[in-house]
Every structure is written in C-alpha cells, then in structure tokens.
C-alpha cells in the first residue's frame, strides 16, 4: 500500500465559543487545500460523531463541500465513535488505492462545547451498547475504572504507575501550539485531582473539546505535482471487537487493536519494533498501557513500568503522544484520529518544531472507539 499524504492541517483544540461546526470544518479543510496547492478533490470525507446530537446537523459531507466551494464533489461522513478520524482516513485510502479517486480530502471536526460535562460523559457512553450498558446507567468512565482496577491487580503495580501517562502527555503538549493544555503537570497533581470513578482521577481523563484537523490523501501520480511537505502512508488496518469489554474472553485484551495493528504493520512490511514513535488513543490513562501491550510495543503488564523509566517520553526510545495525545492536545472526539495522523505527518516532515522526534522515519497512529470495540491503525513513513 502506498498512499501519499499532504496538506496536513490542525486547528488549536479549545473551547471555540465563537466558531460553529461548519466554521471549524471549513477552516481546517481550506488550510489543507491551500497548503498542498490542490484546488479540487474527488471526494471529501468528514469524520464527526456528535453533530447530529449536539448541533442537530446531519449530512456533513455536503455541508463541507459547500463551505469549501467544492460544489459537485462526492461527499460523505464517516462515523466510528472515537476512531471516526482514522476510519475516514481508511475510507480515503480505499478510494485512492482502488483508483476511484486521485485525491481525497479528509476533515475531522467535533464541537463538544455545545454540551455540558454531564452530557459529554453520556455522549462518550454512546459508543457502548445502549440496550445494555447505556440503559443500566453504566458510563464508559465507570467501565474504564473497572478495567484499571483489574489491570493494577493482575500485574501487581500501583495506581501511580498508570497515572504517570498523563504526565508524559502534558510534558509534550506544553510545547505544542495546537494543544488545548500547554502546561506540564506532575504525578502529584494527577493523583491529587479528584476521582471521577476511583481509581481514575480527573486528570487521567480527557475533557472533550472543539477542534478540526484535515489531510489530503493522493495517488502516486498526483503526488508528484503537490507541494511539500508530503509523507507516505504505507500501512493501514481496521478491526472490530465485541462492543462491551466485559463480554470479551479477557477484558484487558484489546484483540481488535492487536488485529488492526498486525494488518497495518504487515501491509507496511515492518515490525512493531521498527516504529520510531506512536500516537495513541487514550481518553482514559489505562488505555495507554493496554494499547502499547496490544500493539506489541510492551509485554503484558510492563508498559507502565517502562513509562516511568522514560521509554515513552519524547527523548525516550519510543516516544508516544508527541503533541500530548488525547489528554494534553485535547479530545475533539471524531476529529482525534485525523489530528493524530496529521501529528505523525508533522513529525515525518520535520514540522514538529520543539516536539520533533529526532530521526523519526516511521510513525504509528492508533485510534479506538469505545474501549477497543473498533480499532484503526495507520503506519506513516518519511518520503525518501
């Protein structure tokens, strides 16, 4: 698989009171088109989850086409919960690799600030089954806390070991201009923040926010004519798993993610150990170690201890969340997969400034829906 990425664009993640969902979509989309020098695409894909609930807006594909002056272009929305962004990139890759399209614009956008905090907790739980978990009043937050407790017990580590991941994320987001939280936090601050569902502290979760990111996927033929910077997408994989983690043989094992990772790495012809950095999907701290272990980056039960030894810090052997990930950069839900792809793009085109991973040639992007009920993984590589 060889798709070419160009025109990566991110807006600052924030509470954009003055901007509507169409504003966010248009701004990111235009930035991507302008920076790549492409004026027309064959398809636009919008990645978004809650537009229908929070803005009562469906049909976001045509809306974006209109905003961008791309009347006539094929346009649709892709939704796969928190992994919508990566699912839209996947759809874009299908279109380009099949020859159906020469150029696809993927824009992820989410505007969570139209809802309250309580609504956000319920909205995230929409990724879970509404005829069971949702009906019985179990939030996704509570499910994450139960997995956390089980993980800590099984591998005999302390809660503080899991709570260290937000510290890494904030370290990286403190110097990321598009991040929502541009400050560092200490482990002490994390564990002194109130519980939202013990052992999960407030600072081990995200506060869903507003943002938009965009990228163009183009064919080899067109790639010669687009402006720098460019990078390659050499592998992509997606896989589903049972909706509720507790219905799986082992709730701590994200089989969908492991499968998606295997597919993406095999397609790229590389091993997990060849990856120079990773962008993870960790709306709850516990998902970081579970992800690293499912992807084969760390042995089971080892990820937290390796994190505390610095393995996943920006200067470590396998940096993660190089701009802060969901915790530090912020979590505009449906857009987050596109953010992560653009962040990897920035690394591989030497546009990461203070957050640059030196010598980064291969990046892996992970995106999840729910607690692993859908997983998308993409492998991006530097152009040589």
């Amino acid at each position: 698989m060889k798709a070419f990425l160009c025109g990566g664009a991110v807006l600052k993640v924030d509470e954009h009171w003055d901007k509507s969902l169409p504003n966010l979509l248009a701004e990111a989309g235009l930035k991507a088109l302008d920076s790549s020098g492409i004026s027309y695409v064959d398809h636009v894909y919008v990645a978004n989850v809650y537009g229908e609930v929070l803005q009562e807006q469906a049909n976001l594909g045509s809306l974006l086409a209109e905003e961008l002056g791309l009347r006539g272009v094929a346009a649709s929305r892709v939704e796969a919960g928190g992994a919508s962004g990566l699912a839209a990139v996947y759809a874009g890759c299908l279109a380009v690799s099949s020859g159906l399209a020469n150029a696809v614009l993927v824009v992820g956008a989410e505007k969570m600030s139209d809802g309250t905090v309580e609504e956000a907790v319920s909205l995230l739980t929409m990724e879970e089954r509404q005829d069971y978990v949702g009906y019985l009043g179990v939030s996704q937050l509570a499910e994450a806390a139960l997995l956390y407790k089980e993980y800590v017990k099984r591998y005999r580590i302390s809660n503080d070991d899991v709570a260290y991941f937000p510290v890494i994320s904030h370290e990286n987001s403190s110097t990321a201009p598009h991040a929502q939280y541009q400050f560092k936090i200490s482990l002490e601050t994390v564990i002194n923040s109130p519980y939202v569902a013990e052992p999960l502290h407030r600072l081990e979760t995200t506060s869903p926010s507003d943002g938009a990111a965009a990228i163009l996927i183009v064919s080899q033929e067109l790639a010669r004519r687009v402006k720098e910077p460019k990078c390659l997408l050499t592998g992509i994989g997606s896989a589903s798993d049972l909706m509720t983690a507790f219905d799986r043989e082992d709730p701590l094992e994200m089989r969908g993610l492991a499968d998606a990772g295997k597919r993406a790495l095999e397609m790229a012809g590389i091993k997990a150990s060849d990856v120079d950095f990773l962008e993870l999907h960790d709306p709850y701290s516990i998902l970081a170690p579970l992800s690293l272990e499912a992807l084969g980056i760390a042995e089971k039960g080892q990820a937290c201890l390796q994190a505390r030894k610095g393995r996943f810090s920006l200067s470590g052997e396998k940096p993660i969340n190089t701009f802060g990930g969901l915790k530090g950069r912020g979590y505009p839900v449906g857009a987050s997969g596109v953010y992560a792809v653009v962040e990897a793009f920035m690394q591989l085109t030497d546009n990461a400034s203070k957050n640059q991973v030196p010598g980064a040639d291969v990046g892996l992007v992970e995106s999840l829906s729910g607690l692993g009920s859908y997983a998308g993984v993409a492998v991006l590589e530097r152009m040589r």
Partner: protein
Amino acid sequence: MRELSSRPPANWRSRPFVYRLEGSRCVVCGHFHPYKRLVCRRCGSKRLDQDKLPSTGRLVNYTVVTQAQQGFENNTPHIVGWVEMDDGTQLIGHITDCEPEELKPGTVLEPVVRRIRVDGEAKLIVYGVKFKPVV
C-alpha cells in the same frame, strides 16, 4: 424529542433483559447474550436458545463513580460493579442497597429491579436491573 403516544417508548422493547435478565444462550459454546440474538458473538454458531441468567452472582470488582453522566446528577456518587453470575456470565451494572465498604471481591449479589433514571423530556421513569448483596 418524541412525546409519549400510543406508540410504546423505546425502553419497552428492552424489558426481557433489563427486567428479567433474559437473553440467548449459544447451544454450541454456552455463551450468554442479552436479548434475542441470531448469531453467537463468540463462536459464530446460529444455534441459540432463549435462556435466563441465574439469580445470584459474585462481585469481581467495583468502582465508586463520582462524575455523573446525564440523568444521574441526583444519583451520584453511585457504585458500579463487575459481576460474575453463577453460570460464568460477566455483567456490569449498578450496585445498590449497600455502602462501598461492605463490598469486596467475592461478595454474593442478586439482581433486583430498581429505578435507573428519569428520562429527560418525556419524564419517563426508567426501571432496570441493579445488584444488591445477599444478606
């Protein structure tokens, strides 16, 4: 959204599972699913029988939830537990009629039907299964 009318509310369809813990059990691998299923999600078999979960289980672990979701503002903090029913089926749900200090892994629990929440606009009272310690 939708006002109550002669049409039943969507919740009404959920009653086999959320009131009575009824569902489908795979004849081949024994896995239990909430509600009627056509295909076993574990082994892919299409041979499923209607069944009902046993009336007791044990607590695997629990969490005290302090961040409310919508509709639970007046019912937070609350306890959410991971329960293994006596047939091995894993469930999650609210734990009621006790304080967190009374719970530990292995505590024997039984399902009871309780008020879950009051539904936003229609003000419909939604009932469903919670779990309480067996005394």
